C-alpha cells in the first residue's frame, strides 16, 4: 500500500506535467507508438483476414501463423530488429506489428465466418459481386467481432509499447526503465499505473465504437 501511495504521490507532483520528459509528452508518445503499430498491422492483417474468412481458404495457415507469431517474445524481437536496423522507432514498430497481427487476423476472419451462410447465399442470389457481398453483407454484420480483434490487438500493443524506450525512444517505458534501473519504485509503479490507465481508457473507447457499429436490425443466426 505504501508503494502505491508513493506512486500516486509521484503522479500528483505538478512538476512532472511539463517539459519534454513530462507525463503528457510521454503519454502522447506512447499513444503514438501504439497507433503506429496497430494501424500498420491492421493494414496488413485485416484485408488478409477478410480474404481468408470470405473465401474460406487458407484458414489453417492463418491460424498456425498467428499462433507462431503470438509465441515470439516482443523484447527479443525489439533487440533483434535493433541489431539489424539500429536504435530508433523502426525496430520496436516492427515488433509491435508482429505482436498485433494475430489478433487482427483472427478478428477479421472470424468476422466473416460469423455471418449466417444463408445470408451470404441470399446476397449472392440477389446478384451481388463477391466484393459487394464482403463489404455490404459480411463486414457490417461481422463488425463487432472485427472490433473485438482490434481491441485485443490495441490492448496488447499498448501494454508492450513501453519496450520502445529500450532502444532510445520515449513513451511511458521511460519512467518504468528509469525507475527500475535506479530502484525508484514509485516512479516505476507510476509508469505502470499510467500504462494501465491508458489501456483501460482506450479499451473503453473501442468498446463504445463496437457498440455503435453493431448492426441494427440484424437477426441473430440460428
Amino acid at each position: 500500500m505504501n508503494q502505491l501511495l508513493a506512486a500516486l504521490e509521484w503522479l500528483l507532483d505538478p512538476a512532472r506535467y511539463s517539459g519534454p520528459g513530462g507525463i503528457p509528452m510521454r503519454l502522447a508518445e506512447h499513444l503514438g507508438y501504439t497507433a503506429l503499430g496497430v494501424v500498420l498491422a491492421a493494414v496488413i492483417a485485416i484485408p488478409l483476414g477478410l480474404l481468408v474468412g470470405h473465401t474460406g481458404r487458407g484458414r489453417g495457415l492463418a491460424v498456425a501463423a498467428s499462433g507462431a507469431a503470438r509465441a515470439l517474445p516482443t523484447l527479443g524481437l525489439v533487440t533483434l530488429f535493433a541489431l539489424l536496423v539500429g536504435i530508433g522507432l523502426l525496430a520496436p514498430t516492427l515488433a509491435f506489428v508482429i505482436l498485433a497481427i494475430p489478433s487482427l487476423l483472427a478478428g477479421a476472419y472470424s468476422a466473416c465466418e460469423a455471418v449466417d451462410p444463408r445470408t451470404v447465399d441470399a446476397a449472392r442470389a440477389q446478384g451481388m459481386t463477391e466484393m459487394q457481398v464482403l463489404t455490404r453483407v459480411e463486414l457490417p454484420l461481422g463488425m463487432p467481432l472485427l472490433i473485438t480483434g482490434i481491441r485485443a490487438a490495441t490492448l496488447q500493443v499498448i501494454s508492450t509499447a513501453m519496450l520502445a524506450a529500450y532502444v532510445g525512444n520515449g513513451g511511458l517505458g521511460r519512467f518504468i526503465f528509469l525507475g527500475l534501473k535506479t530502484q525508484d519504485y514509485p516512479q516505476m509503479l507510476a509508469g505502470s499505473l499510467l500504462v494501465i490507465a491508458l489501456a483501460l481508457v482506450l479499451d473503453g473507447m473501442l468498446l463504445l465504437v463496437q457498440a455503435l457499429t453493431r448492426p441494427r436490425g440484424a437477426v441473430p443466426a440460428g
Partner: protein
Amino acid sequence: MNRRTARPIARRGALAALGAGGLASLAAACSSSDPLAEETSDAAGGGGGASDAGGGAAGSLVVGSQAYYSNEIIAELFAQVLEAAGLTITREYQIGQREVYLPELESGAVDLLPEYTGNLLQYYQADAPSASPEEIAEALAGVLPDGLTALPFAAATDQDSYTTTADFASANSLAAIPDLAGVQEDLKIAANSEFEARPYGPAGVKETYGVDVALVPVEDSGGPLTVKALTDGTVQLADIYTADPAIQKNGLVTLEDPESLILPQNVVPIASAKVDDAAAAEIAKVTGALTTEELIALNTRSIDEQAKSADIAREWLAEKGIVA
C-alpha cells in the same frame, strides 16, 4: 423443478467464490509490507543454499556478480581459485545494479563480489573528489559500511567513458571531453537510463566542462545496440566500458577526462567478514595478475567465442599458473 433450484444455488456459489477472491485480493493490496524487500531476501536465502547467513561453515562462501558479463567472469575467477583452495562456493551471478546487490552484501547474503573502485566510492559518497587509483581505493576503505572490506585492487580498469567514432573525433578535433563544448551540432550520448542520475552524466559534464549532451537511453549497458547506435551515427557519443573489445574492433576513440570526472575504476574484490585471510590470499593471486589487457582478452573470448564464464576462467587460471 431441479433446474429452477439448481441455477440460483450455482449462481450463489459462483458469486461467493468471486466475493472471496475479491476480498482476498483487496486484503493483499491493502497490506503495507514491501513485497520487493521480501522478494530480495527470499531469493538470496533460497539461492544461498549451502551458505547460511550466520550458521554456515567458514569453508563456504557466496560469490556474487553484477548483471554484467565481464563482472561475472571476474567473479568466476575468484570462485574457481577459492574452490581450488578447498572452499565450497555458491554462485549468485547477474544480481543487478548497485542499488540491488549492495544491501545483499551488507546483510551477508553475499560474501564476495568484484566491484569497481570509483563507482562504488561515489555510491557511498556522492561528492567524492577524483584522485589516483590508490587514493580512491583508500577513500573507499574509509566509506565502506562495517563488515565489508575492500581487498587489494587489480591493475585492470573498466570504466564508463565518453567514446566516439574515429571520424567524428578527427572531424571535430576531439581528444578530450571538454573539446565537445566546441562542437556545433546537438550532442547525443547513448547509455543506460540511469546515466542521467550518475555524477558523470549530462548534468556532471555540463557543470564541469560546459558540455551540453542529451541522453538517448539504450538499455544494454554499452552492448551491441549502443555500439551500433554510435557506429550508425544515430548518436555522436556512447558510454562504452573501457574494457569492451568493441572499442578496438570498431576503431572507436575514448575521450580523455582531464578533470577525472569519471573516477578510476579498478577492479576491487569487496568481501564480507566471512572471507578470512587465507581466502583473501587466494583472491590476491587473481587480482595480482589481472591487468586491463588481460581483462579485455577475457572479455573478447566471451564475446567472440560466446564461451561460458566458467570455461574462460578455468583456462585463464591454468594459463597463468594460478590453478593447476
